[in-house]
């Protein structure tokens, strides 16, 4: 098994045409072994801790805003990303968390 330790990801999605806010959290301590590992992998791939928040820029009308907080051990990172210009790996993480991490909808 690779490096253990608790990883928790919280996502708040706001905006969009409807302007509705949705929040979800995933925590390795609350997931079974396989899905906990999946979460760790998605967090690693997203390199979320090295990203910086970005403004939406133009051409972003009605797209989603994601407020993401990743806690890994005692290190906590908060970041604001925008649907229109976020890296694909971060997009996969956000989607996985918001969809309740069911394996079928991991993509």
């Amino acid at each position, binding site marked *: 098994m690779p490096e253990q330790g608790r990883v928790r990801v919280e996502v*708040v999605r706001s905006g*969009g045409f409807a*302007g509705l806010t949705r929040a979800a959290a995933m925590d390795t301590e609350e997931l079974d072994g396989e899905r906990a590992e999946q979460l760790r992998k998605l967090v690693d791939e997203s390199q979320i801790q090295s990203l*910086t928040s970005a403004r939406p820029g133009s*051409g972003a009308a009605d797209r989603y805003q994601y407020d993401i907080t990743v806690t890994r051990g005692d290190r906590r990172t908060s970041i604001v990303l925008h649907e229109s210009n976020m890296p694909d790996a971060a997009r996969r993480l956000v989607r996985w968390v918001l969809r309740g991490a069911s394996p079928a909808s991991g993509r």
Partner: protein
Amino acid sequence: MGASRQQRRHISRGPGWQSDARGRTGPHCPCQGILPPYVLQQIAVNGNERQRRSAGTTLLLDQSIRLARAVSVEAGLTPRAFAPRAAVGIEAEGPDRVISDAQHTQELPGVPVRAEGDPETNDPAADEAYDGLGATYELFAEAFERDSIDGAGMSLLGTVHFDEDYANAFWDGVQMVFGDGDEELFNRFTVAVDVIGHELMHGVTEKEAGLIYWQQSGALNESLSDAFGSMVKQFVTSEKAEDADWLIGEGLFTDRIQGVALRSMAAPGEAYDDPVLGKDPQPKHMSDYVVTSADNGGVHINSGIPNHAFYLVATELQGFAWERAGQIWYGALLSPRMTPRMGFRGFARLTMGTATRLYGPGSEEALAVRNAWSAVGIDLAGQRSRPRGGFAALARGRVGGGRAVTSSSTSPWLSGEQRDERADRPRERNAASGATGGRSRTSKS
């Protein structure tokens, strides 16, 4: 008039505004807009009836814009670049639509399924998008003399079936994109024609004003899309302002949701109240302005305030909303004083100036505009009938200098220019909290 679209584009690609401060132009001076004034004058004299009527309107609009520019020059303000704005189509050739299918991926634009003039596809989403973009094009061409998003016949690109379970629609700077909903809470987003008009209007606003999608300028951007989207719906149903429902996104909710639509311009805050979704969070008065860092600073929330102002103007004036209220809002959007960081109050002043310019000081229209903004907590009493310099100074002098630190002020993604803008922010805070001036309608004391 034999000028083809090609030729018109050639003419409009000139180096920009070259006339002097009084708006005089010569044959070697390509101007903003599609055709230079001297050509319009020719059409006004020699064209057929529709062309004459159209050219006459164009000239009027041109003159009003030039007058505003002359005023701003006299006031010592630097006129903003005129680039491709004030789109006045005098012989619009009709829309050029292409609807594509993303086939439930995030790839844009996807596979083309219906181009201009093609028969129906039997895919409701594709056909609704095609028809909705057509209706929006028609409203802009007929009521606002505007030939598409850029005023120069730009193709209208729409993609349907975007992504999976995607309960959203958006404008990405190039095209309009529609999701199918999630089948649980939301139906497909093409069912509401005002949603389609809303997305197309984002393109118009981007071309004309570049309103930054953040806090008040973003909420104003949203509100313009709702106002023009709603007018598209009223245009399609041929409804007058006083008879229209002023709902945004009617039909988007599945029957599991307790609500009539996503937003209501007539009654912001009352569109839905549902155990799952909660209650419609829109305010309709500055005293209830929501300060938040979510939703790009509440752009879909605080848009309720200018939304309601537009509704009040349109219903006060009665008749078709695009005849007068729409002209005032559109004229304000095209105003040379429009800036990317425009807030509610600045925009309210622009509508006031536009109403005065179009209909005269003290006119029914100017009065309706003043009363509407006052009703939503933006008091324009005492504004001069024609805007003069020093807007910001005027605005700052009007309210006291309260201060509020909010979550948004610590947002990591404020740009430098937006940080600068916050010098102006206390007045918004004051109005928002209802803390000063006694303008709050609600009794909070």
